[in-house]
């Protein structure tokens, strides 16, 4: 049973991570490390992405037109790549939010239905 639980958790995470990334970035432009940190804090440790998952995912979303990026050099002299949502990304986020709400509501209805 433990393996099934892990597999389901993995699939659930995979299915929701894009939505979470877009949601985190929608609050303002952010750089990779900041996204990892905020996502981890917001989800109480549920989403703990490694750099090997996050950065290629951000590049993929950027290539698909959901994100745009910009290099900004800090006062300290260290350049960072900031990501922000494009119009397409914003629209995708709104659609995905609606779909997520419908899904959660439907699953809850099924789980809480009296036998």
């Amino acid at each position, binding site marked *: 049973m433990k393996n099934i639980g892990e597999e389901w958790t993995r699939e659930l995470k995979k299915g929701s991570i894009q939505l979470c990334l877009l949601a985190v970035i929608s609050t303002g432009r952010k750089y*990779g490390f900041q996204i990892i940190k905020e996502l981890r804090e917001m989800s109480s440790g549920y989403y703990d992405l490694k750099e090997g998952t996050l950065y290629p995912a951000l*590049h993929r979303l950027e290539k698909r037109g959901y994100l745009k990026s910009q290099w900004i050099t800090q*006062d300290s002299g260290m350049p960072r790549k900031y990501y922000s949502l494009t119009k397409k990304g914003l629209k995708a986020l709104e659609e995905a939010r609606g779909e997520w709400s419908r899904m959660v509501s439907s699953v809850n209805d099924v789980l809480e239905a009296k036998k």
Partner: protein
Amino acid sequence: MTQDMEQYLSRVRLWMFGMPRKAKNGIVNELRAHIIDSSNAQGGPASIGYIVSQMESPRRTANKYKQIYGYGLPLKILFVVITIFLAIWTVPIWEIVNPSFSTNFVFLLLIVFLFVIGSRAGKKMALVTGIAALLTRFIILGLIAAALGDFAVVQGGGVFVFLMASIFLILVAYIPARTIEKWEDKRAWDIPMQPASQAYPSPYAPQPYPNPRPAPQAMYSPPPNPPANSCPRCGTAIFITTKYCPECGTRVV
């Protein structure tokens, strides 16, 4: 310690061979910024070695980006040129001109080459090379038939087989490319699973950041009673060995 980071980054760059230069530079700089940010959050440059050791292998990291960006223009042109060169010698009419020449062998070579291109260079490149092979074969067939003045060799069932063999070349490149792309798309969102105790820590427990696993003492041990310091910009308490504020990124002297 920054030596570990630069060594890791140069190996990632090496494995990204053939990718567009701009993309490679951006990826390496982004990873460098991530490592520095992580080290600032974990106690300064002394932790860089540990952070790098926890990252994915340079090859695996580079492969993830390769699937996204593919190869740069010079290599793409080279692939098409090789395809055209091989495709020229796969036209069976060469065996009529010179019976000792084996077009089947070159055809086999072309299949292997297109398969490799398909599995390494992505769907678009697979289609481009496959179509280049098809067009080259038909152009050469037409030219040689016209030069020989004997169009009988390109009529009837032979043309159909020739067409099928040419379409097969496109599929040989395209099918592995599409399969790998689908597979990579699925794997792109794989999140490594952690033991339940680490994956769901108590919100009240102090949580080391960003990685809940503590650094092994043998690899990195923080200095005893590190002197306190604070960021001049946001006031965050930081180690005196930390160069950048983990909160606002300000350089701390």
